[in-house]
Every structure is written in C-alpha cells, then in structure tokens.
C-alpha cells in the first residue's frame, strides 16, 4: 500500500494491543446495513512511475497558448526562488500556525506579508489571506455592511466595471443574507464610472460603494472623486484593485480625502502562476478602526517569556473557531502557501522591481493596442487611460477570431459580449511584461490574418 509504513507484524502487534482480531473489527460501531460494498468504480492504484507517465501525458496534451488575455489573471515572471522556497517541506506541509512557538517561520512570514500588503495598499492592516479576489470582495461587502454603523440598508453600490465573475460571486454569497447589490452603469464612451451619473443615488442609504482600479476594461477609474462622493453620502468605499498596478497607481488608502475604507482583490499577479485559475489568493486590508471587523487570520507581534519578539495568530475572537456563529466569517483554511510565495516574490522584486514590471506591462499593452488598431477593422473602444488591459472592437464576431488565434497558438483575449450585451464584437486584451515585442508583432500579424 503506498504511504502506509506498517509491516504485517506490526499490524498484528497493534491489533493485539487493542485486543481485536483484525482491522475490520475496529469498524464494528458502524451499522452493518450502512457498510459500503467497496469502491468498485475507482481504478486500481498506480505506482509513482505509472502515475508520472499518466500525468506527463496529460500535461503534454495541453501546451499552453501564448497569452494575450488578462481579465483577472495575469501572466507575470515569477523568480525561480519563489517556488523553490515556498515548496520547502517546512512551508508546504505545515498547517495553520496554532502552535505559535513551533510555527515562527510561517507566522513571521505572514506578519511580513501583512506589512507588505498594507504598504502596497496604503492601508493600516491586512489579513493573512482569503480564498480569491472574488470571494475577498464578497467578504469586503459583508464587512462593510457590518462596519457601516450609519447605514441600515444592506444595500451596496456595485460598479458594472467590476469583473463580472466577481459580481456573480458576491451576489451568490451575500444575497443569502439579504444584501442587495445595486449596479452602477459605466460611461460607454470612456469605459469608467462618471461621478456625475451618480446623482440619482445621493441621499439614499447605501452601505458601501465598490470601486475597481483598474476596472475590468483595464481603464483607470476616477477614484478620488468617487471616494469623496461616497464618503459624502455616508457610504464606505471598497476598492477592488490589481496589486501589481498599485506599485505605480494611487493606492486605495490614498483615494480622495480620506482614502478607501477597505481594499481587496486578487493576489495572483504577485508571484502566483496562472495554473488554470487557481489556487490564487484574495487579499483584504482596511483602516485600523475596522480591524475587528476584518475576516480571516491575522498575525500579530508579541513577546515571549524572555521578552523576545515573536509572532502569534491574534484577534481570534473574530474567528469561527472561537466565536462560532458570531464570527466575522466562516473562513478557516485560507491560501497560506500562496501568501508564502507572494511574500517571497515581493521581497525579491522590491518596490523598484514591482514598479518596473508594472510599467513594462503598461508599455507592452500600449504597443499591443497600437499594433492591433493599425489593423483594418479593429478599433480601440474607450478613451479613459488604461493600465495593462484595453478593449478593442472588431468588425466581425469575436468567437471565430479567437478560435483561429488558438489554432495559431494564441490566447487572444476575453470576449466581453457575454457579460456586457452592449459590447458586441469586443475583446479585452492584455500584454504583460512577459510578452516580448517580437511576440506582440507576431500576434498582431496572426490577428490580422484571423480577421480576413
């Protein structure tokens, strides 16, 4: 049996010590009628050689496409050291650091992560991870409803420029508690929310306004005006942001007069591979005064019996294992290993590395868009400034074009029409720092070809 160390003799000794004849007897409290008749449909076991052959063959089948898609998941360079360190057994096979003294590695790392993420967001505190960007936004919404003492409405203003799947997830999660999401239309010319269009919501009771930065179209929102508008109307502000962008773009903590109240988003751009969409991680950060509403694990610094610095899980009274039905969230297992990787990533990149990477993504996307709109039948859609994604409109349906590009080895972008009926024949494209100029040129040629 793989992974079971017992010799027959030991098994016999152990049964003997217990005082039973065989292992079967240990299951004698299970009503006989319920006993399973085996696991017949499951294939027989494979040894490592065999499973390696199988999985390698599956992997070979799936050669990745050269990626010009973003839409919430971004291909960035990940230094080799990141995963060589993160998969060290001591990180990989530990669990939630319940025994702090035996988990100082993970705990200190999480404290460092909280610092890095708070700094990147210009917020006071960060937790130690949520599941992913979408569920983090759901938690942020729940948190805002709890935290906004002035609001009784359980209503949230949600920009339609937020990732469509994020909006779905938030709805799927929070509507069970009777929270209502009111969707804000964006300006179809500029591809962002225009503050002037919000007059209709003034003076009504909303718990929070959700602002994406950059938004799903890659456009930069006018976060200062939006934040101030929301605060004037006694809403909290939730920023849902791309952390890589925050290296060069005004971070949530600095939006408007007072800054956003909650910052959250998808941590994947910071050292996490695309990996078919997961595991990624959600981050969430807030102002000091809301820390006790923050969901999830939080690590704090303290001292030991000798007065030496050490780290522990703290503020656990917010959590399900202590507070049960009164917890701020049900989250227990989070995305720890991803944080390990992300923390190492940020350490290796430093502020300068993140900034240069962000800038190069921006520049590459600008070149990409330039090349694409030079093609007959392609135009750029919105005029708000972009970070590293942009929407283009084709003179023909998108699906066949994407198929042809896939055949040519490219992931050509994200078709928007499914989620935005008004955006027929449009495509969201992206070129991170990973895309060499030559690749962008070759892609543009393939694109022109596919349009013919």
């Amino acid at each position, binding site marked *: 049996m793989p992974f079971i160390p017992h010799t027959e003799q030991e098994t016999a000794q152990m049964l003997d010590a217990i005082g039973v004849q065989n292992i079967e007897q240990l299951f004698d409290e299970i009503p006989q009628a319920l006993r399973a008749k085996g696991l017949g449909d499951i294939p027989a076991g*494979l040894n490592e050689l065999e499973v390696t052959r199988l999985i390698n063959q599956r992997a070979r089948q799936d050669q990745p*496409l050269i990626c010009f898609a973003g839409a919430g998941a971004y291909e960035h360079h990940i230094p080799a050291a990141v995963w060589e360190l993160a998969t060290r057994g001591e990180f990989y096979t*530990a669990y939630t650091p319940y025994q702090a003294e035996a988990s100082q590695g993970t705990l200190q790392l999480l404290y460092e992560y909280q610092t890095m993420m708070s700094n990147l967001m210009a917020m006071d505190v960060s937790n130690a991870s949520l599941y992913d960007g979408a569920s983090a936004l759901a938690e942020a919404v729940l948190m805002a409803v709890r935290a906004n003492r002035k609001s009784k409405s359980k209503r949230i203003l949600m920009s339609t420029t937020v990732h469509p799947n994020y909006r779905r997830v938030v709805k799927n999660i929070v509507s069970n508690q009777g929270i209502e999401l009111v969707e804000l239309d964006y300006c179809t010319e500029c591809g962002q929310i225009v503050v002037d269009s919000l007059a209709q919501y003034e003076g009504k009771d909303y718990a929070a306004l959700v602002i994406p930065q950059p938004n799903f179209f890659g456009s930069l929102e006018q976060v200062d005006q939006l934040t101030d508008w929301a605060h004037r109307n006694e809403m909290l502000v939730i920023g849902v942001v791309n952390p890589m962008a925050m290296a060069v773009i*005004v971070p949530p903590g600095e939006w408007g007069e007072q800054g956003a109240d909650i910052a959250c988003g998808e941590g994947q751009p910071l050292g996490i591979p*695309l990996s078919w969409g997961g595991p990624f991680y959600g981050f969430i950060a807030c102002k000091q005064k809301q820390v006790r509403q923050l969901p999830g694990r*939080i690590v704090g610094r303290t001292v030991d019996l000798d007065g030496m610095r050490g780290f522990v899980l703290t503020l656990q009274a917010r959590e399900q294992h202590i507070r049960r039905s009164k917890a701020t969230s049900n989250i227990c297992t989070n995305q720890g290993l991803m944080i390990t990787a992300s923390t190492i990533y940020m350490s290796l990149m430093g502020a300068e590395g993140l*900034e240069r990477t962000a800038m*190069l993504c*921006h520049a590459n996307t600008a070149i990409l868009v330039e090349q694409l709109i030079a093609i007959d039948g392609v135009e750029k859609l919105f005029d708000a400034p972009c970070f590293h994604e942009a929407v283009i409109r084709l003179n023909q349906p998108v699906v066949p074009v994407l198929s042809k590009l896939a055949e040519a080895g490219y992931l050509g972008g994200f078709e928007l029409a499914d989620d935005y009926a008004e955006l027929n024949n449009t495509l969201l494209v992206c070129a991170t720092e990973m895309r060499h100029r030559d690749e962008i040129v070759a892609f543009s040629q393939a694109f022109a070809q596919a349009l013919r």
Partner: protein
Amino acid sequence: MLIFEQSKANRFNRAQQPGEAVDLNKIPTEFRRQQSAEMPAVSELQAVRHYTRLSQKNFSIDTHFYPLGSCTMKYNPRACNSLAMQANFLGHHPLTPASHGQGFLQCVYELQEILKEATGMKGVSMQPMAGAQGEFAGLAMIRAYHDTRGDEGRTEILCPDAAHGTNPATAIMCGYTVCEIPTGDDGDVDLEALKAVVGPQTAGIMLTNPSTLGVFDRNIKEIANVVHAAGGLLYYDGANLNAILGKVKPGDMGFDVIHINLHKTFSTPHGGGGPGSGPVGVGERLLPFMPVPVVAKTDSNYRWLTEKDAPQSIGRLSANMGNSGIVLRAYIYARMLGREGMERVADYATLNANYLMVKLIEAGFEVALPERRATHEFIVTLKKLTKETGVSAMDVAKRLLDYGYHAPTTYFPLIVPECLLIEPTETESKEEIDGFVAALLAVKQEAYEDPDKVKSAPHTLPVKRLDDVRAARKPDLRWQATEKQKG
C-alpha cells in the same frame, strides 16, 4: 530579523527587474502613485537566506509527527507536487479554451467521478476553495432547494454542540439561524434533544460523522429519518472522511449534500494554512443546484458546464474554477491510492488511532469516550491532571513541542474540558506513535514533579512561550518603518 530590517534604501535585485524603467506616459499624473510603497530592498541571496532560515523554524509533516486532530496531517507525496507544478499545467490561463485543455479537464472530471464513488453522491463540483466554502455551497443549495419548492419559513440550521466552528459560522453567513443540539454522554448526538427541536423551521442539519469527538454516530440513520421527516436536509461535513473511506459512504447514511476536504483525506498540502479545496457532493435532489463550473464529458470530449448549462445552480463561488492546482494534486493522489489504497487509508488511520488510544489508556491517561471505538482520532481529557497539578492541556501541548512532537488539537471540541484531540493518520509508523506515547507520559510525570517546567514550556524552540494576551490587547499587525529595532 524581519526582512524589512535587512532592507537598505537603493538596494536593487537587478536579476528580477526589467532593465528599462519605461515611462508611464499614457497615464495622467493624477493616477500615479506619488511615493513608492515601502517594500523590502534586499539582494536575492538575502531573501533566499531569510526565507530558508524562517522555514526551518516551522514544525511540519516533513519534519515532525503532527497529530493535529481534525486536520489529517498525513504524508503529502512529493510527486503530487512536482507533477502538478509542471510548466504545462502552471502556464494555463483560466480562459484557455477546453479544446486546448483536455488533459487537465480529464483529470478534473475523473476526480469528480472518483469522489462520487467514494462518497455515494450523485454529483460533485470542485468549485469550493476549502471546507468552509464547501459548507457554504451546501447550505446555499439547501436554501435553493427549499426556495424552489416554495417551502418557506425554513430559517434554522441544526448543529451539534461538538461541531466545528465553521458550521455555525457558515449557517449565519448563509442567512440562517443556528440551533445547537447537545451531545449525549455516549458521544452520539442526543436523539431526544434533536427530536425536540426539529420542526417546520428546520432547513437542515450539519453533521460530521465520525464526529469531532472521534466516534461514529451509530444513530445516523435515525437522525436522517427524523430530519428528513421534518422536511429538512442533511449536510455532511466531510472533514473526517479519512476515517471511513470505503467503509461507509455519506450518501448511504442519508446525507443530501457533503463537502470533502481534499487537503485532509486527499493529502493535498496544508501549506501553513492553505490552500485547501472543498468539493461538494450532492444527492439526486440537489443536483440542479450544484455550483458551477463542473466538468462534463460527452463521448471523449471534456468541457466546462457553466451557469448557462445549469440555470438553477447556486452559481460560482470563485472567479475561476476553484483551486485547480489543488484538485490536480488530489487527483494524482487518488490515482496512486486506487480503490484498495483508499480502503487501506481508513484501515490504518483507524488502527493507528485505536492503538494510540489504548496505549495512552495503559499509560494512565483519561480518554473522553473510553467505551467507544476511536475512529481516526480520539480525545484525551487532562482535567484530572490540571486539577492536581495546575498544568493545563495547553501547557502539555507546549511541552510536547520540546520533545519534538507537534501538539494535538487543544480545547476542541469545546464540550470536553482540557482536551487534546489526537489524530495520528495512517502514514505514521508504529515507532513514531510509540515515541509519542513515551513523550506524553514523560510530560505527565514532569507535570507532577516539576509543573513549572511544563507551564513555562517550550524551552528549546526558537522562542519561549509567547504572550497571546498582549498580542490581542495591543495589536501590532504590521512593521512600521520608524521602529527599526532589532529582535
């Protein structure tokens, strides 16, 4: 030292930086960050050395016996990691068309099928990203089910008092109220109490079986009947599936919906707190409500089913398809075990737990339910020791660390005083278990002979006993540039 304390202004790690600092010329200044975020500025060697050394401060399965009850800290085969971390898996954007991802989709599909067979359910979705999110998906399906039938007024979820904290917390998150059911002296749910509270307001019950007390609830069929009769549904918290794999299936016990912790029973890594994966399985009635996406197979073609294909679905709970890379690891593990291997998991997890329980009883420890079989775990209560010596379960836990063993789960379930919940798992050897018994016995002796030594433990770890209270009273959650102090 924190990584920030090794930082130096203007130190760059050039190997990781694009050479040219491109200008953000297309972005108006009002959008631009004015001051760089404070980040570590260290060399690559400094970072590598720092995190290598930090890692060595952890206990982990790869370094220590880790009998953390309810967490199933078993061996994580390294092949599951290295095979899942191949470039051809890691390189795939979630938008990759199914045509270019048949290899991966086949893995997901086949794991869905394996989990169905292992649990006796009719459908499985990999969407939830951990157990608690699986619970959420389950309750959301229960809610959707009642709603669809127009069966209103079912506002309450029943939970045993021994339940894991995620259960009541999930119920609240899903908009329910929680009604706690007491546990009987024999460790099974108090059936009479259950009958007394079940009613038309009952949306469902959340149960772990084997329970968090480490026993198999023998009345499960009756419980199912009672709840079903009242129109409620049964949710199975699969955290303890390791104990019964191939022995008894949740579907056969009468559960309508379940979650499975892949990071427990299917040995995906715990990663210092995650990522997990909490697939949900459903019986016939809840099939239409399963979260999307799931993978379907037509002929030999695999594809994603989404909201469009499943209009009654509770929808998605992650932006993508959940923790794919973890699903892949679980699939590899499941294929290595195969059907016989899975049954052996339950066999040896149970053998190890019962053996360890008997040995501890022999060594004079009091177990919570001595008349019962242990499942894959069991509870020791130290209330006598605490009374006689002042040494608490927490003290014992800390002292065990000095002996080179990770502590069991402490103070959970909440209903047993001064308890240790001990789960050795099937991958630990008899020698390791014997060594653990000896250590626990040694600590007990110390508690009588030199209680202060135990109360001030640990003594040999990178830090001494840490002050939790201080941490919570004056939360210091982030390093501030101004301090620059050493430590």
